[in-house]
Each structure stands twice: as C-alpha cells, then as structure tokens.
C-alpha cells in the first residue's frame, strides 16, 4: 500500500530470504524471511535451541546459510548479497556500519586494554590517526553510556558486569553503525542493572535511528526495545508481528505459552 511518509526509508536495510541452516540431519533454522528497515528494532524470541542464535549468526554473516540469502543495503545505497562480499568487505562492514553486542562482554571487548582504547579501536581501524581526537571521542562515548570518564584508562577487567556491557555498546556505536546485532545483551545481569541498560539502549536506538536485530528469551526486553517480534520454535518462525500485538494478542499455542509464563509484575 502506498504511503508517502515512508519515502525516507522505503528501502529495507537488511533482507533475509528463506534462510535455512542444517547441521547434519538437524535443521537448526528453517525458512526464515523478513525485511528490516532503518531505525527498526526486531526482536527474535524463543527458548534455547529454538534456532534464534543460528539465525542471528547467519544474518550477521558469521555463519553460511545452507540455503537462502541475506542482503544488506550498503552505505553507498547499493544492496548486496552478503554471501558475495569478500572477506575484507565483510570485516570492514563489521567494524564500521554494523555492531555486534555479545551477551558476554569479554567476547566483544579486549579485556587487557583500557576502556578508551576499546572504544577507540574501531576509529583507529578506519584510519583515525590523531590521539587527542580519538581520546575525546572515546571519552564522549563513555559519557553517553554513563561511564565515568575518570575510568577511561582502566581496563574492563576492573569494571562491573553492567559497566562492561555499556562499554561494549560504546565500542560498537562509536563508528555510528546503521545496524546492530544483539545477542541477549541483558543476560546474566542483575535486574536493576538490566533496567538501566535497557533504558540506555532504548534511548540510544531512538537517538541514533539504529536498526537492531536483538535475540532474547526475555519477553520484557522485547516489549521494551522492539517494534516487531519474531517467535521461533524448533528452528521455525511460528509467529511474527508488531511487538505489542504478538504479546497482547498471541495466536500460536507456543506464543500463548510464552506470554502466559511471564510472572505478573
């Protein structure tokens, strides 16, 4: 249906077409398709083993699909099939226009290197060569993720879990990516720390007009952050739609079970 106000972003950023992945006889992910538009947050929910992490890895080009395609609209406006990108291009994409927030910050950070260098690395990787400017930008980002800039020269080893996760977010966002993948970003954090992180993510996503694919088993996270959800079970996408629609008016038996399993607040 024609809609004038969509003109600014009428082309999807990321398109998945019939993505499947089998490990031997096990189908980890079957026939997943969707389009993600700029500024849109898509949550993939489901329990462990539902195939959501496999899907995330295929979307982010870290795992080759058994069949199907992922295409991405590059900064030059040209949409490319990820499978046709050379390794150099894919890695470049990964440290400039994409971000990836791991559940375990140790996977996404250099634990032995200072917070400032952790944030600055992506800048240096794209050729920034002025220490002062790199440090100012890193310091600015620490402030944005609510880390005291007095801690800029400390390594993440000395940080709490919540701080590490916020540092990982700063490290990812410093190159102003358009698409960020998140794998259970609030997993393993205390509830109060989670709330703060979600809040921060929510405002950063809106402010930077980020497109996000977030994998979570926590429906509260999906409700707070995402516009749309995809519910996965046994490697299949069983239900998809607006987040509040799916959570308030779930249709599939499994989705109803998921929703009813949330403890009332």
């Amino acid at each position, binding site marked *: 249906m024609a809609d004038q106000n969509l003109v600014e972003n009428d082309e999807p950023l990321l398109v998945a077409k019939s993505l499947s992945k089998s490990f031997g006889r096990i189908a980890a992910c079957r026939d997943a398709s969707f389009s993600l538009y700029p500024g849109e947050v898509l949550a993939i929910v489901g329990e462990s083993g539902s195939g959501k992490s496999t899907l995330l890895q295929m979307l982010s080009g870290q795992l080759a699909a058994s069949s199907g395609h992922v295409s991405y609209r590059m900064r030059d406006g040209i949409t490319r099939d990820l499978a046709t990108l050379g*390794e*150099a291009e894919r*890695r470049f994409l990964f*440290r400039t226009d994409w971000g990836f927030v791991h559940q375990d910050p140790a996977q996404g950070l*250099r634990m032995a*290197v*200072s917070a*400032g*260098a952790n944030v*600055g*690395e*992506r*800048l*240096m*990787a*794209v050729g920034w*060569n*002025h*220490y*002062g400017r*790199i*440090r100012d930008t890193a310091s600015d980002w620490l402030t944005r993720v609510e880390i005291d800039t007095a801690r*800029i*020269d400390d390594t993440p080893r000395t940080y709490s879990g919540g701080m590490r996760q916020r540092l990982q977010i700063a490290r990812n966002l410093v190159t102003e990516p358009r698409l960020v993948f998140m794998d259970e970003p609030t997993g393993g954090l205390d509830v109060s720390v989670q709330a703060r992180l979600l809040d921060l993510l929510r405002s950063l996503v809106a402010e930077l007009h980020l497109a996000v694919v977030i994998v979570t088993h926590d429906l509260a996270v999906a409700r707070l952050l995402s516009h749309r959800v995809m519910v996965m079970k046994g490697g299949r996408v069983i239900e998809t739609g607006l987040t509040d629609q799916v959570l308030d008016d779930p249709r599939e038996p499994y989705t109803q079970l998921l929703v009813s399993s949330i403890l009332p607040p």
Partner: protein
Amino acid sequence: MNAPAYNFAYLDEQTKRMIRRAILKAIAIPGYQVPFASREMPMPYGWGTGGVQVTAAILGPQDVLKVIDQGSDDTTNAISIRKFFAKTAGVATTTATDEATVIQTRHRIPETSLHANQVLVYQVPIPEPLRFLEPRETETRRMHALAEYGLMHVKLYEDIARFGHIATAYAYPVKVNARYVMDPSPTPKFDNPKMDNCPALQLFGAGREKRIYAIPPYTQVVSLDFEDHPFEPYRFNAPCALCAAENSYLDEIVTDDKGGRMFVCSDTDYCEGRQAAGHHGSLSAAPYKEKAQEASNG
C-alpha cells in the same frame, strides 16, 4: 678447509635451498612473514637460531662476516656465532662494519651507514608485531592479509594513555613499503630511521617461530605514530664517555655501587673507530682504567 666434517656453513644444501626460497619470497613481499622449516641448530632457541640459519644460507666463501650482540662484537653470543662460521665455513670475520659483507645482529643496527654490498641479518625472537594484542595466529594472519592494522595503534594509544608519550622503546612497529606492519626485532627505536631507504638488504630470521621476513634495499620503512604524537627516536641525552659521540645510541653502565654510571656507545666498533681517530670523551679508555684502579686501591 679446517672442518671437513661439516658441509660448508653447517647446513646441508637442501636446507639452504629451502631457506633461500623463503628469503626470495620475503624479499619479493617486503615485510611479509614467510614460514620456513626451521632446523635444529647447535645452540638453544633465543641465541640466534633464526639469524644463524639465514646467515648460513646466504654465506659464500668470499664473504666477510661480522656478528654483533647489542652493538658489541665481543660478547659471548657474538663471539660464538663468529667462531661457528669461521669453523664451519672458513669465512673471514671482522669487527669493522665497513669491511663486512654479511652482518648478523642481535638488537642493534650499526652506527656506521651500511652500503649496497652488505646484508644485515637480524635475530628475531617474536616476529609477529600483533601477537601481544591478538593471541590467535589465524587472526593475526588475516589481519596482515587484509591490512587491518588498527590494533597496532591500540598499543601506541595505550602507551600514551598510560605514560603521556609513546613509551615503546624497542621493537617499535614499522610499516614496510606502505603495506605490511613489521616488528623490527628488539632493536631500540633509535635505530628505526636507519631501516628506511637503507642501501643494504635486511633479512630477519626467527628460528623458534619459523619465520623469515625481509626489507629489500631502498625500501620505505615508516615508524607508526599519531599525528599529535609523532615518532621520536630516543637516546640518552649525553655524549659517549669514551668517544664523545653525540649522535650514537648509548648504553648506560653502572660503575660502582654508589650510583656512579657512565654512558658509552653501544656500537663498540664505531666507538673504537672514533677513539682511534682522536675523539675522546670525559672517561676515555686510558684515564678511565686508571681511575678504576685508583678506586679499587683507595
């Protein structure tokens, strides 16, 4: 031949050919680490097994060999390697930089400018400049392949963040021929500028790590830095106590247990050459020896 039991220059010819092929490839791709089948040598790792294999592979009967360790011709390591080749190859040896055709070195580049008919062979302990930041060899190789060198600047960034300046004083990373980032072996960064556009061929051998790399003559070698923290070679701000040289790399030598110390050229050949040419420092050899005697007498 005074040691018929050995093949010329110790290594068998097949091994030399293998090493030469690695060297040729290394010269063809300046700064790129070429794997080679490093042999067991009659010395422990860390004593120059890589350098010795490279030297053995390129040495000819007409060559004149000089070996230095930390700039000095007369340390145990330098003397052993010199003797090793005198015995196994029967080549002439020298301590004079000018006269040598092959110079094997540990941790220094001679002060005397090298010329086009010379080969400088470096002993390298750890050839991978990215190693301490990225422990995975698969990943560092990929980073070299894709020229992803942001990580190298992370190290320099950390230096400045911690010490206010780039505190890396040796094994200071360089970019060779505007392509590969290379570890120049643990030479002081004072020597880095000498690598740039050098008329001599520079070969690097890492025995334990089984890598050979090279800088062909007249190749651009740039020390990495930041715009606002440019590369600066460092030397102690003093003249050599023996030859009064103002522009040579100095060793600090503790002379007693009361805090006494002196600075002398680390390049012994250079220092002796200057003294022979009439340059004298505050503690030139003769007076210094007298003073030392006075001190022990008194």
